[in-house]
């Protein structure tokens, strides 16, 4: 099977190279046969890469250790659930996933546009195939997942323990789907610029892909944050880590793009900006992959080596300079058709929203790459931490929330101050009430930025509710439907508008969660023995007893914590720490478990009002004497005898546990982050769901008569 996989990859590279040449030749000469052949190359690429993907996935599921990659990233003891995801814990497997996803999305978009965009699509196909050729070359020459293990080991090294979490099954595919989907509008923008066809047609054809990319990337980022909160033992969901930032940057520019393309679609405006934005988003998507895979910046998420830095830098340089050259050489084709009719209009709101989003992206870019910038300038590598990021991103996020409330109530083209006042009166009153009510709550007034965020979110929520209400009333006035029917029909007929409003609401909820948990979180680090208690906020945490568990791959030590409030039992939490066996043969049969990787399982009581988060760090040092003694006396113990030694150690830990260190966190409204993310996802899906073409929904002829003035159903 190794040969099948290897052949499939080599064939994929050849197909991609051929496809680039055929598409470009077809585009240049106008010979449709070559264009069609190039498009078929994309379909074939997807088929061949699917073969490679399935071969590798099957090898992981069968624990076929003749595959070096399987031997080094899985084991027979790895649960099947995680074997399926082990492929993307490796550099080689994740690059294969990247190029496979790219080929699937490329096939989909080229199939959908097979009868449209006949000038732009071949150039876009060449760009997509060029990217595929790059990644196929990486997996063929530099990171081939189909290497033979010699000798074939009886057992594999196992999956990196931190990745043994259900989120990790879907987090990387979601992120990579986002990255690869963003290459679709990137490629079509490049195609439109090359052919000087910078009208709205390519935007219409790829808007769904941009929205899907935004959605996948956003959900992927949130799932990563949830993993960090519940799996990593440090007690946070966002650390401004370079890899986290790398996924956020294209999401921010992508958000700006899906707003500003509406201006190009409707008004023919901001073409240079939109082209630059989508090209930058494509570059940032590749940069995100580069940061994870190159190891150029230190990150807790960078599981790859550092062998791919140069090729990636080359690709990013080509994409960047190519984009700049294209935009600057096509300025005439990008000339704006419309003009800003009023500074007080939806268009202006979008310009402001874009400025803030790109500003946020710039701040994050600067902070992320500051270690490299400082090293280049001063020769010394310095980095900036979360307080630096917070200083700039929090005020910008606040402005963004306010704009997401203001935008929906301002009309396109022109709005009047009188109408805006009427539309804003209710939401502003709600925001003021929220501010006054929350100021009365203990401690909130001392955090003005958090208070402003809560009020801003209340403002956004009120705007969204008002918009749905007014839209429903407007429809009812014409259709005389019931409120429920009118509401559903209104939303279905205006998917983008009302899906977008739901997204704004979700973002407001999400920001409330972030502001509350970041501003009002309480953290206690304590050291307790069984029978002792600690207090955090109004909760008493009682360390009841120590626990232990053994499995083939790890020793788990933990604690049972009883949580009570005012003497009443609230929850029982069981944080644990798992110690995975090291592969170092120099270590003894017991010691090897405590010199390898270790992960925390958090004891979490999640709630809409507050999360109570606990992690335990058993004092292994206090047991070191016993561990060393067992290793000395039974150095050759394996299998059952090794299990007996570990059982003895575990029994001793339960019977006479040394004091353990605990991190206790009470964090308000963390669940609102995931809830808000869910609302954003639903709104995004609703907006993404295809509706009938607007003109098709109206009678086709006589055309001009259609434009006679009569009220339509909203």
């Amino acid at each position, binding site marked *: 099977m190794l040969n099948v996989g290897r*052949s*499939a990859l080599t*064939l994929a590279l050849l*197909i991609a190279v*051929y496809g680039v040449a*055929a598409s470009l030749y077809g585009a240049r*000469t*106008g*010979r*449709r*046969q*070559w264009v*069609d*052949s190039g498009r*078929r*190359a994309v*379909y*074939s690429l997807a*088929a*061949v890469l699917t*073969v490679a993907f399935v071969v590798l996935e099957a090898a992981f599921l069968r624990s076929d250790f003749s595959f070096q990659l399987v031997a080094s990233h899985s084991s027979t003891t790895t649960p099947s659930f995680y074997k399926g995801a082990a492929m993307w814990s490796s550099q080689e497997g994740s690059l294969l996933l990247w190029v496979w996803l790219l080929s699937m999305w490329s096939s989909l978009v080229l199939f959908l546009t097979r009868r449209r*965009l*006949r*000038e732009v699509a071949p150039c876009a196909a060449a760009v997509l195939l060029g990217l595929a050729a790059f990644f196929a070359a990486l997996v063929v020459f530099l990171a081939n997942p189909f290497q033979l293990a010699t000798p074939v080991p009886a057992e594999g090294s196992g999956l990196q323990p931190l990745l043994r979490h259900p989120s990790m099954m879907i987090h990387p595919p979601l992120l990579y789907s986002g990255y690869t989907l963003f290459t679709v509008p990137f490629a079509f923008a490049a195609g439109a610029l090359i052919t000087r*066809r910078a*009208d*709205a*047609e390519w935007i*219409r054809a790829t808007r769904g892909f941009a929205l899907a990319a935004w959605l996948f990337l956003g959900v992927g980022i949130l799932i990563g944050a949830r993993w960090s909160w519940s799996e990593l033992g440090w007690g946070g969901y966002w650390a401004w880590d370079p890899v986290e930032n790398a996924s956020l940057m294209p999401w921010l520019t992508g958000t700006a793009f899906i707003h500003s393309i509406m201006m190009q*679609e*409707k008004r023919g405006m901001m073409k240079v900006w939109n082209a630059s934005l989508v090209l930058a988003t494509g570059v940032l998507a590749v940069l995100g992959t580069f940061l994870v895979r190159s190891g150029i910046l230190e990150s807790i998420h960078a599981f790859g080596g550092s062998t791919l830095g140069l090729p990636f830098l080359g690709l990013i340089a080509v994409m960047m300079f190519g984009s700049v050259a294209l935009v600057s050489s096509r300025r005439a084709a990008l000339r704006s058709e419309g003009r800003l009719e009023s500074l007080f209009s939806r268009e202006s709101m979008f310009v402001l929203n874009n400025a803030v989003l790109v500003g946020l992206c710039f701040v994050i870019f600067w902070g992320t790459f500051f270690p490299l910038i400082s090293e280049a300038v001063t020769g010394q590598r310095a980095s900036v931490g979360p307080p630096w990021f917070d200083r700039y991103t929090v005020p910008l996020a606040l402005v963004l929330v306010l704009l997401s409330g203001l935008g929906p*109530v*301002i*009309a*396109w*083209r*022109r*709005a*009047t101050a*009188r*109408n*805006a006042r*009427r*539309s804003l009166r209710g939401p502003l009153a709600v925001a003021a009430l929220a501010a006054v009510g929350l100021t009365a709550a203990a401690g909130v007034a001392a955090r003005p930025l958090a208070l402003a965020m809560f009020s801003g979110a209340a403002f956004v929520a009120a705007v969204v509710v008002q*918009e749905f209400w*007014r*839209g429903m009333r*407007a429809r009812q*006035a014409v259709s005389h439907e019931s409120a429920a029917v009118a509401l559903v029909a209104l939303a279905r007929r205006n998917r983008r*508008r009302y899906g977008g409003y739901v997204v704004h609401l979700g973002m407001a909820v999400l920001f409330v969660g972030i502001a509350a948990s970041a501003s009002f979180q309480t953290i206690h680090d304590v050291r307790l023995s069984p029978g002792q208690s600690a207090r955090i906020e109004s909760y008493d945490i009682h360390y009841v007893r120590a626990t232990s568990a053994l499995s083939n791959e790890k020793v788990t030590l933990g604690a049972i914590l009883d949580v009570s409030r005012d003497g009443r039992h609230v929850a029982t939490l069981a944080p644990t720490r798992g110690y995975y066996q090291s592969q170092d043969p120099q270590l003894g049969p017991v010691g090897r478990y405590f010199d390898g990787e270790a992960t925390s399982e958090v004891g979490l009581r999640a709630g809409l009002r507050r999360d109570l988060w606990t992690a335990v760090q058993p004092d292994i040092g206090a047991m070191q004497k016993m561990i060393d003694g067992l290793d000395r006396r039974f150095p050759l113990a394996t299998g059952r005898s090794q299990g007996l030694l570990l059982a003895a150690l575990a029994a001793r830990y339960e019977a006479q546990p040394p004091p353990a260190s605990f991190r206790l966190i009470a964090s308000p409204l963390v669940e609102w982050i995931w809830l808000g993310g869910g609302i954003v996802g639903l709104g995004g899906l609703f907006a993404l769901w295809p509706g009938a*073409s*607007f*003109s098709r929904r*109206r009678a086709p002829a006589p*055309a*001009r008569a259609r*434009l006679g*003035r009569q*009220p*339509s159903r909203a």
Partner: protein
Amino acid sequence: MLAAVVAIIAGPLRRAGAASAPEPSQRAALEVAKDVKYREIHDAELDFRTGKLSEPDYREVDRALRSEAIELLRRLDAIATKEGRR
């Protein structure tokens, strides 16, 4: 696998004829612009009905949008006539 790929990719190259007829790209662009313009007319009406546009502003915006739409339809009609004559 190689044979299947070659057959699929080379399929279109076996077709007779050199360059195919050029796509009516202008018409496609105008169709998209027409669709967008209809959407804009609808959005302006919804903005008016939901209180975001004053009546005088709405009348003016609506008039401008409809005349832009009519211009697009005229251009589409002209292309259709030209194609019919061919």
